[in-house]
């Protein structure tokens, strides 16, 4: 796919802020654990101590340093969110596109499969799955992706149906292009704005699901994650732990989402040349 050279991109504010945030968080994920002053599982500090020189963000109820827990939690959450979000998007795009393009029985089968997955409450399947095999984060991310692709797939299918009969796609088919080539070369780029928005939504859902899973008791407490931190912090909502314990993970989560969404907005223009001069 012929992408516009990065000439105009440098000057686009959305792209710069999105990229800046992404780099900042990437740095934190990479270097964080190395720069962390303590071991995240070290519970030897005075519980619920307020922020001090030794503990920038104070200590949580279990006696662990909050700042260190934040750094380790960030890495796990980003990994979990990106894995689940990314996989869900890929599944949704391919299935949605194939359903729209092939139509007929393929469309019907895929969409009914989507309905089945939509109807069964995800919570129950997570519990059943957690009981049968160890809730390793990777397997949970995979499971989440398998459960959540249907809603995006339906959205993409609806749009692909509108694009499917554009003349330049028929022309490409007449030139002898195989189905796969047409889907990848012509159908996929056509819906680019939606992928980024869908990815942001799915990644967000995955990261917040961590908190819900911790809330339900399905998440291994010894694995640090932002969701777990939030769920434990909320137990002491009546103490004034808001500023040092609850706000940081929530703030970092929204930074993550902002990075993905800003990039989505900026790249929108790049992938649809017509938009450059629109209005």
């Amino acid at each position, binding site marked *: 796919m012929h992408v516009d050279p990065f000439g105009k991109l440098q000057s686009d504010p959305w792209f710069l802020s999105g990229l800046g945030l992404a780099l900042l968080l990437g740095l934190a994920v990479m270097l964080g654990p190395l720069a962390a002053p303590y071991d995240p599982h070290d519970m030897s500090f005075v519980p619920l101590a307020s922020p001090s020189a030794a503990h920038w963000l104070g200590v949580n109820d*279990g006696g662990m340093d909050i700042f260190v827990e934040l750094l380790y939690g960030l890495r796990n959450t980003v990994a979990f969110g990106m894995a689940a979000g990314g996989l869900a998007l890929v599944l949704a795009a391919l299935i949605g596109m194939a359903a729209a393009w092939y139509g007929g029985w393929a469309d019907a089968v895929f969409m009914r499969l989507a309905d089945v997955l939509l109807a069964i409450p995800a919570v129950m399947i997570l519990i059943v799955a957690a*009981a049968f095999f160890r809730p390793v984060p990777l397997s949970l991310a995979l499971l989440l992706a398998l459960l959540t692709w249907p809603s995006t797939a339906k959205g993409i299918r609806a749009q692909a149906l509108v694009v499917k009969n554009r003349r330049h796609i028929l022309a490409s088919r007449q030139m002898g292009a195989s189905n796969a080539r047409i889907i990848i070369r012509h159908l996929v780029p056509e819906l680019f704005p939606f992928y980024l928005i869908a990815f942001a939504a799915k990644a967000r859902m995955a990261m917040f699901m961590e908190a819900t899973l911790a809330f339900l008791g399905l998440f291994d407490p010894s694995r640090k994650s932002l969701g777990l931190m939030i769920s434990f912090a909320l137990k002491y909502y009546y103490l004034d732990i808001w500023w040092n314990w609850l706000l940081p993970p929530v703030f970092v989560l929204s930074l993550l989402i902002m990075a993905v969404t800003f990039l989505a907005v900026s790249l929108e223009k790049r992938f649809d040349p017509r938009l450059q001069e629109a209005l």
Partner: protein
Amino acid sequence: MRKTLMAIWLVLALSVPAAAQISEIRIADTTGDWGYPNAFRHYPRGPGYVRMSWVFDTLVWKDENGYVPGLARTWSFYPKIMAFAFELHPKAKWHDGRAVTADDVVFTISYFKKHPYGWISLDHVDRAEAKGPHQVVIRLTKPYAPFISDVGGTMPILPRHIWEKVDQPQAFDAPEAFIGSGPYRFKDFNKAQGTYLYEAFADHHLGRPRAERLIYVRSGKPLVSLATGEVDLANIQPEMAEPLRQKGMAIIQDERGWVKKLMINHKKPPFDDRRFRQALAHALNRQEIIDRSQRGFGTPASYGLLSLDHEMYNPDTPVYAHDPEKARALIAGLGYTKGADGILQREGRPLKVELLSSHITVGGQSVADRDGEVIKKQLEAVGLVVDLVNLEQATTDSKVKNWGFDLAVSGHGGISGDARILNEMISSQFGAGSVNSARYDANLELARLLDAQIPEMDVVKRKLLVQRIQVFHAEDLPAIPLYHPQSMAAYNPQKGIQWFFTRGGISKGVPIPQNKMALLR
């Protein structure tokens, strides 16, 4: 017109001294629905029983000091004829106005023999005879020490004229199913919202209840509901005490009626060896668990399992000080050597242990805690490899019940009630069906003692037996008691009701502060 009536009523209430009638009391509960409040439909847990206790009276009841008269004014035990005699309160009435008679008690016993009610076991009871309108004698087949606590204090008396016609008690949900002799009539249970409504039974034999209406409300955040005055009584987390005290709330604290313990799968090597279990006990620093997991609100439990506040508690039950070195020595004695990486291993296989943990419901509230994490740290310090698995509660319970575990963090109440709890929590003969029971029958002497203490009617002799049971439990450690979490409640004193935690827990040891006596003072 109604508005003015209400106004007068309020003025009246305020002016009359504290003992006067108040319009309503609201109690908060996080879970909400505990089943319909009658013997056959309430959930088998503490809160379910308490909701029934407002409607159905028992022969005997308890308050913060000990046993008090319930339906029976006096009761006594005649060892020669192995029978208990109860003299009923003459003015006791059913909610439909009919008088409570000895026949009702006789009928209730025979009815519960035919339709067993989980909370009580009547296999020690032969039969009951009415010796007059208000005298009844209950004969035992063999002596049964916990009779007063288990049967006298727990068995709800059913009105004969209603239940004699009922052969399907579970399906019987007509309004008459909730006619009892308790201080409150049952009005409504909204299943979706998890709320209950009771109304005062004016001519209750112990006097008119202080609150006209009693309402249970479901509230996820008890502190907020209390502070905003939506509810008048609620269980709280220890940390909430201080902020609530500042808001003028009265705080009460229960005796140590609930214990957190580490279940051990003693059927599976190496856990089947007593010395290994003792080594585990030495490895655990219980005070650190309390500090890290409960922010210091809690006290280490006795290794004899019985609560420290129990009158039969044995002060010199063996204790295992936190001594990692001794623990390693004990384990080494079993043929384990310490590998280069500090991990204990035998024949090349590292000592790998799976620790199950989940949200245990304490007094009806499911709370996430860090016990699992702390225990994992402490055991790993000694050299074990601990794999902490956090699962949903029902999943963990089913794994423990089918012996599909190594270690599991668990907990239960009832340890300040009758000593029979020891039988249920140790021997499989009593507690095979319970998830919290250790089901440990390896020690024959312990099993003999357990069987001996049930029929022992003489309190002094029974105490000796119970104390020796505690020593055996501490030595064999079928499960390692960890600590008693501090369970507290808060209530709004302006309402003029003094709530209290019942001595030894309500009926068989339910650590909930909602005792009906508080509303009958």
